[in-house]
């Protein structure tokens, strides 16, 4: 029986058990609210609903994802300490020990776990050097889709256009149109903003930082309507903001907004260069580091420094805000944005990759300036032992922001192709683990990780289960959209 028949038969309404938001199951042909109660070894999802006497059953290879509790974990953990694996997985937890062969992690997501050292890309006991402010987007909550032009007041319901953006499975998908996507992120003055963006052809995106989403000020009394200068689109969408425009072969930064008198303006901010080179079809990990006090914004792409801009604020400009947003300018193309992260930034001036050496481990400290390299020989009792160029150093783990292992120490990555359905479990505030699905209950999910082997993940801090029927987790587009 197809999903749509269930919906008609059961007079679907969103069901809420107690005060917890429902889980949401998305299938190939629709979605269903309810409560996830497990997956059998035969690959059958059990789904409970108040209006069904028995759990419903669905084949896991027909499922796209399950958002647990509206994307909100039952037991969020505050720490952002985590280990990142070569296969892209991130496991949160406290690092308890490490020697030359393996690392032991005490994780709220898996319990105590041992990870081979040569499978680890980096460990981050204190990432960012500051607070994590936002990670997502695991739900639509807080996000706004804003039209470029207000809807016509006489437009009928059927004539109202579709939104340009759709939230699915921890991603924002852009489907065409001129709407902007905004989020009041509470970006501090010194912040890191990271996200992953994929596109199908020639990227053309405007990214708003430190936006206050201020509306267009009212025209002054002594000005006729014809005399009022209409603000450019970014200012109309984001108010007073910094706008980074990224194209295939250049990136620019503008400061847009309104003067104290309400006059719109756009100022192009200088950089030593505007040239970048981004694949016309593909994706990249972007990172914007902004320091409003120093007046700088730096762009990193796939971990490498690309550009830095210097901001000269003029006295007549209104202050910036703390929101972020996206506005696509080539409306015919498809985009996907995920893995967003906003954090306080400790001022570390350069990504570790710019410093990377194939034969050396790199340790970045939480003071935002110190960088050490050498061979990390062990971690124990909360201390990192580093054999450096000039001495053997003994560093408190609480002083370490990031530790990147030497390229030469890492196992060569192989494509992990699972036989059968693969699952990726997303955790808040940080963490994702993927592998071949074995089975699950409402509280635990067992999978076979290509890096670590059999893992039992604890779902109370999970927010999303993502399924891939082909067994290979890539940055594939959801062709059902």
């Amino acid at each position, binding site marked *: 029986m197809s999903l749509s028949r269930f919906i008609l038969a059961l007079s679907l309404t969103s069901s809420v058990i107690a005060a917890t938001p429902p889980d949401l199951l998305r299938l190939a042909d629709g979605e269903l609210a309810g409560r996830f109660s497990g997956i059998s070894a035969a690959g059958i999802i059990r789904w409970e609903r108040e209006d069904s006497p028995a759990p419903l059953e669905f084949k896991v290879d027909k499922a796209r994802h399950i958002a647990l509790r509206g994307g909100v974990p039952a037991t969020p953990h505050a720490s952002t300490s985590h280990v990142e694996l070569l296969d892209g997985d991130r496991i949160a937890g406290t690092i308890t020990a490490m020697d030359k062969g393996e690392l032991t992690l005490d994780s709220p997501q898996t319990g105590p776990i041992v990870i081979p050292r040569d499978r680890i890309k980096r460990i981050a006991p204190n990432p960012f050097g500051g607070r994590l402010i936002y990670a997502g987007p695991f739900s639509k909550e807080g996000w706004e889709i804003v039209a470029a032009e207000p809807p016509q007041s006489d437009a009928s319901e059927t004539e109202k256009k579709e939104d340009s953006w759709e939230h699915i499975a921890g991603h924002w998908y852009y489907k065409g149109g001129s709407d902007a996507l905004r989020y009041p992120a509470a970006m501090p003055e010194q912040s890191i903003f990271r996200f992953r963006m994929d596109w199908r052809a020639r990227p053309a995106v405007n990214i708003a930082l430190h936006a206050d989403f201020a509306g267009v000020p009212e025209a002054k009394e002594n000005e006729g309507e014809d005399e009022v200068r209409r603000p450019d689109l970014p200012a109309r969408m984001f108010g007073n903001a910094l706008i980074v425009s990224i194209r295939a072969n250049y990136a620019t930064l503008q400061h847009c907004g309104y003067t104290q008198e309400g006059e719109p303006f756009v100022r192009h901010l200088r950089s030593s*260069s505007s040239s970048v080179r981004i694949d016309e079809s593909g994706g990249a990990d972007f990172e914007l580091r902004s320091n409003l006090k120093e007046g700088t914004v730096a762009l990193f792409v796939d971990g490498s420094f690309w550009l830095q801009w210097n901001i000269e604020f003029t006295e007549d400009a209104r202050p910036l805000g703390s929101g972020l947003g996206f506005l696509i300018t080539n409306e015919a193309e498809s985009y996907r944005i995920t893995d967003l992260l906003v954090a306080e930034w400790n001022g570390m*001036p350069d990504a570790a990759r710019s410093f990377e050496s194939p034969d050396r481990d790199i340790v970045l400290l939480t003071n935002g*300036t110190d960088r050490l390299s050498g061979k990390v020989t062990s971690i124990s009792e909360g201390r990192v032992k580093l054999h450096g160029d000039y*001495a053997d150093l003994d560093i408190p783990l609480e002083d370490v922001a990031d530790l990147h292992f030497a390229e030469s120490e890492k196992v060569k990555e192989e494509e992990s192709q699972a036989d059968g359905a693969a699952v990726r479990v997303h955790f808040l505030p940080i963490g994702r683990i993927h592998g071949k699905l074995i089975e699950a209950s409402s509280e635990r999910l067992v999978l076979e990780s290509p890096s670590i082997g059999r893992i039992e993940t604890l779902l109370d801090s999970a927010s999303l289960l993502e399924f891939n029927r082909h067994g290979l987790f890539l940055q594939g587009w959801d062709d059902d959209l």
Partner: protein
Amino acid sequence: MKLTFTFLLLAGLPALLADQVRTTDGGLISGRVTSLDSHALSLETELAAEAVQVKPDQVQSVTFDEDSVQRGDHDARVILINGDRLPCDLKRIDDKHVHVATRYSEDLKIARKSISSLQLGIRPRQTLYQGPSDSEDWTVDDAWSFENGVLTSISKGSAFREVEDLPSSFSLQFQIEWTQIPNLEFYFCSSEARAGGGKLDRYYLQFNSAGFGIQRQSSGDTTYQSLGEANLLPDSFTDSKALVEIRVDRKIRRIELLIDGEVAGRYNDPLPEAPGGSLFVLSSNSQASGVHRVSNIVVRAWSANRDRHDSEDRGDGEGDSLIDNTGQRFTGRLIGTGKSDKGMIFLFKNPHQEDPLQVPEDRVSTLFFAKPDSKSERPPMIIGLQEQGMLSVGACTFAGDEMKLTHPLLGEFSLKRNALTSMARRLENPPTDP
């Protein structure tokens, strides 16, 4: 007389036969500056029997006789807490002072609390190639010939040479002379021993009637990209010669161009991978009777890190910071310098180790000194020195070939006149980076 302030720092003026004083009303007086204080600037000139006195507030700028400026080759740079910059060579550091030697003054003893940062290894180091040494050194075609250490072109053609094991970062320096209008290309990081077009990955310097430019040639979609230009036209060089240095960092894909010892531009390569070749190709494109003479070609290993490190965030300034030439950065306390069997070492106390770190001098890139509590005064005049040096002075006198001055942080000392490039007055609210 109260000085009123206007600021202009000159760079790149045409070569002059004497000191030139430019006044605020657009006037220009040539002569020899003999003194400057709050009352007047004195200038000896053939136009007057006695020295001409110009009111300080009427002086816009002074450019010293460029022909007499001695180009230096110091290996370090001290940045003082007031922003002044001193090219120098480091002698030693103790717990209170930094001791430096200079070619334009006596040795200086500078209080550590007066110093913001110290940069080392400014001068590119290990020489990988120096020539041309003989007629076999470069492979030339009929347009080029070798004589007395000079490669000369008389028509269109090319010459090439490989420098084996060329490191990722290096410096290429050479002297170029020309007649009529230059039209020269110097290819570097090339895998092909030929000039000209095609889908090849390399960089090249272009020098012609439009000046200097750095180009990127690529095997990718876009064959040619201009990385940047320096607006120095051939006729701005009085003797039709220039010392060119190109500093290349292939790791971060950045190129720095220096002309006659001064940075003319810094350019980024937007392509994801830098060319990996080790061939150098000289190409003359002169069809007519124009001649190019290229000599003193030197290729050295060079670390680009040092320039990047100096522009880093100082941090909270509570302690000293040491950045080495691999990019490692330590915060702690610089005890001083010492000696080892391999030369000077820096003793740096770091919280993560019991004993001080011992860092060899050739591994040190930049030192940031702890911020002092006091602020420094900023006198009204700025003197430009060779190698991008800069000093603030309130008053100075000239005696023979020396300038005597009193500096707010360095005290009284003398500078050789041939180290001076320019002088200007400071703005009332100057930018933080004068």
